[in-house]
């Protein structure tokens, strides 16, 4: 695609009257959208509004039931992703489990589009690595090229998918929640790349539930609701109006004031060293407290949570819960004793293939509680479905019922099911790793309310790369840097100032 003469007024891609139904679910009910060259359009919408469905149609991975797509003035229809790519549409999909192939190296996954498309016929490890380096360099990505994709964390997978899409030199770039597992540092870096691409005349459709992201880069916001475009906002975008259009009510995303809690200490971390050579740190969690940890990619947030849950061991130091030493031997040990964890990668950590029993919403929620709910061993599906039905209504999960399999749900709704699983039983310590990935603002407020509401006698430790999110949910925010915890500036005044102080801590400009 030649991008020699960027003309801001030129329409790069437009869709009109797109419809798509999955069984009785109408995911799209006549959506219209226009993206001009050199423009970044934010696509907003609650979970299950149909955003990803639209993306999948535009990228050729599913076909629409009705409607037309116009690309560069010509009506097109894509029978496969390769046709969409050939036509100049590059896509980063929401699901990080589809970002690359296991068994292939990082280098091979970075060049996957070329390998699967029309790259050089003859390849060698060296030629692939060389090309992969170029692709990675375009977004400043630095990953060991020989590592197997299966060993990557979701954030890294997401970055690979982004690098690939950026390298595709497409005329239309679609990003479906590209920053859902990235920290603000990486997200900033991505925005710089996107601005550069925009300047070179590429049309960008950007989907995110992080209003901060959208405020930073979007030229225009389009709100999708019930499979239809219901509102459109030009810059400067009025986000509270947009959110109202999305979820039908307004939200005030205020931070909790960090008044020091005097409740008894429930769990504590003592002189913990996460990796050899890291600085030891302490952490006290008080009963009823919600504490968030932020930090850049790979800083060790997940590692701390995993160590508490019994999936990893500390190099030095230890934990106590209720004053007694806590050394978990693994998930089953922890779960029995009321320590629950939601792992960061919901595909790898929670979802089951649709054909097996227990892949339904009811089964997913019940899985860790089976021994407690059914001590005799004999299942009682009514019990499971009751719990699921409650979760569906409490969290507003958009599904047809407790027997829906999770692959039929939108990304955000899957995440809600995964969270609902751990609210289905009383707990002492709840460990949430990136719990709000892909969850829309409305649902996030509901979830936060639920988490905060169930806090008596238990504590919650949240690892999140999104500072905004951390401020919204937590009583206290800590920053993880180089596998060690630092206290962020305790008193956050305005939201913006608070974000600033946390981000400063992330990059290490604050002494602690």
């Amino acid at each position, binding site marked *: 695609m030649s991008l020699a003469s960027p003309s801001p007024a030129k329409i790069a891609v437009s869709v009109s009257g797109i419809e798509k139904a999955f069984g009785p679910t109408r995911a799209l009910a006549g959506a219209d959208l226009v993206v001009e060259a050199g423009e970044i359009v934010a696509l907003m919408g609650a979970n299950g509004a149909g955003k990803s469905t639209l993306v999948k149609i535009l990228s050729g991975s599913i076909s629409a039931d009705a409607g037309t797509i116009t690309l560069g003035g010509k009506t097109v229809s894509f029978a496969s992703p390769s046709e969409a790519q050939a036509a100049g549409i590059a896509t980063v999909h929401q699901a990080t489990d589809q970002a690359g192939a296991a068994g292939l190296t990082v280098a091979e996954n970075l060049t996957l589009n070329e390998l699967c498309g029309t790259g050089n016929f003859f390849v060698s490890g060296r030629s692939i690595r060389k090309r992969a380096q170029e692709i990675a360099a375009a977004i400043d990505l630095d990953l060991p090229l020989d590592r197997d994709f299966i060993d990557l964390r979701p954030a890294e997978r997401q970055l690979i998918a982004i690098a690939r899409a950026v390298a595709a030199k497409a005329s239309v770039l679609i990003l479906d929640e590209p920053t859902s597992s990235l920290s603000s540092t990486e997200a900033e870096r991505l925005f710089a790349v996107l601005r550069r691409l925009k300047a070179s005349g590429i049309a960008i459709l950007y989907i995110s539930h992080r209003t901060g992201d959208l405020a930073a880069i979007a030229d225009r916001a389009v709100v999708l609701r019930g499979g239809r475009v219901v509102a459109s906002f030009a810059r400067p975008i009025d986000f509270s109006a947009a959110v109202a259009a999305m979820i039908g009510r307004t939200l005030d995303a205020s931070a909790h004031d960090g008044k020091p809690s005097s409740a008894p200490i429930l769990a504590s971390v003592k002189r913990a060293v996460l990796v050899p050579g890291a600085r030891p740190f302490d952490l006290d969690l008080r009963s009823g407290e919600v504490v968030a940890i932020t930090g850049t990619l790979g800083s060790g947030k997940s590692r701390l949570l995993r160590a508490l849950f019994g999936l990893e061991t500390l190099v030095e130091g230890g934990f106590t819960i209720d004053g007694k030493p806590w050394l978990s031997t693994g998930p089953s040990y922890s779960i029995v004793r009321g320590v629950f964890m939601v792992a960061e990668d919901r595909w790898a950590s929670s979802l089951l293939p649709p054909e*097996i029993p227990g892949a339904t919403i009811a089964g997913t929620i019940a899985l860790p509680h089976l021994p407690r709910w059914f001590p005799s061993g*004999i299942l009682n599906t009514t019990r499971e479905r009751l719990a699921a039905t409650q979760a569906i209504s409490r969290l507003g999960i958009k599904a047809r019922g407790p027997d829906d399999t999770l692959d039929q749900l939108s990304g955000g709704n899957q995440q809600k099911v995964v969270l609902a699983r751990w609210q289905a039983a009383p707990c002492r310590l709840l460990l949430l790793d990136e719990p709000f990935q892909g969850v829309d603002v409305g649902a996030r407020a509901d979830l936060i309310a639920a988490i905060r509401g169930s806090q008596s006698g238990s504590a919650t430790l949240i690892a999140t790369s999104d500072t905004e999110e951390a401020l919204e949910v937590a009583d206290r925010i800590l920053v993880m840097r180089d596998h060690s915890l630092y206290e962020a500036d305790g008193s956050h005044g305005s939201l913006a100032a608070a974000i600033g102080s946390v981000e400063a801590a992330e990059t290490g400009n604050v002494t602690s």
Partner: protein
Amino acid sequence: MTEQTATQARPTSSLAETARRYALFVLLALMLVGFWIAQPAFINSANLFSILQAVSVVAILGVGVSITMSAGGFDLSVGSVAASSVMAASYLMVVLQMNAIETMLLVLAMGALIGLANGLLIVRVGVPDLLATLATMFLLAGLQLIPTGGRSITAGMMLPDGTTALGAYDPAFLILGRARLFNTIPYPVIVMALVAVIAWFLMERTRWGRVFYAIGGNETAAHLAGAPTKAYRLWAYILSGTLASLGGLIVASRVGRGDVSAGNSLLLDAVAASLIGFAVLDKRRPHVLGTVLGAIFVGVLLNGLTMLNAPYYTQDFVKGVVLVGALALTFGLGKRKR
């Protein structure tokens, strides 16, 4: 909450789904009726029971295979475990002069032990399932012959050291394979029914079954949800090994001697039964009921063809054709569009 339909958008989906669910039942019924018309003797109860008896061993082995499959593994050693059990049972009775009860217990223990060995190789050492059980398969195929130097085992046989074996098959042992309850139902059929019902209950109606399937679907997810996944996978192989040796006991008690065989055809038939089971009730996954039905399906086909005096070589062919047809029907109707 709402009515449940599959993912397909077509309005016919519920019809197609019903067709898919029951395709194999309908085919089975058609086959029964067809054979009945062609050969009235087909439908008499003695013949129907002899079909069930004929498939019992394959069905029992198939149940084991499908349990390991549901836990995300694959047991290629079931055939050779069964074959070794035949040899072991004969050796215990004929050479070591044990009685029926001792023999059965020891052979079942042997099957469980082999399963345990498979499981440890897979879970502890980290060898991929197919690879580990393939190795066991070869190992057993050879091992079973070593005690007798490759001879089959019969009463009065000459041992490698030149002496004569003094024991014989315990008549009580032969009951398992040869006698009938109420003079009608062969014991192997009862054993098969028991195995099927218990395994079905375990896999579909208890939380343990759930966990087996969860492990097969996503081992990490099951582990994070607190399931002791390694223990479960071990148990899957132990169950499979025990069931295979149970199958071997039935063969031994029918045949009444220890015959040399690698068990390959038993393996393939058991795998076939559990794979055909995928299509039963449109489950698209291994399951006990499907496996048993798959075995019966093939058994009816072969019995009917034999009655009609079809040349033996057409049997494999017809087996293949019917398989392809049933599969195409089941899966073709349920094709998910992208």
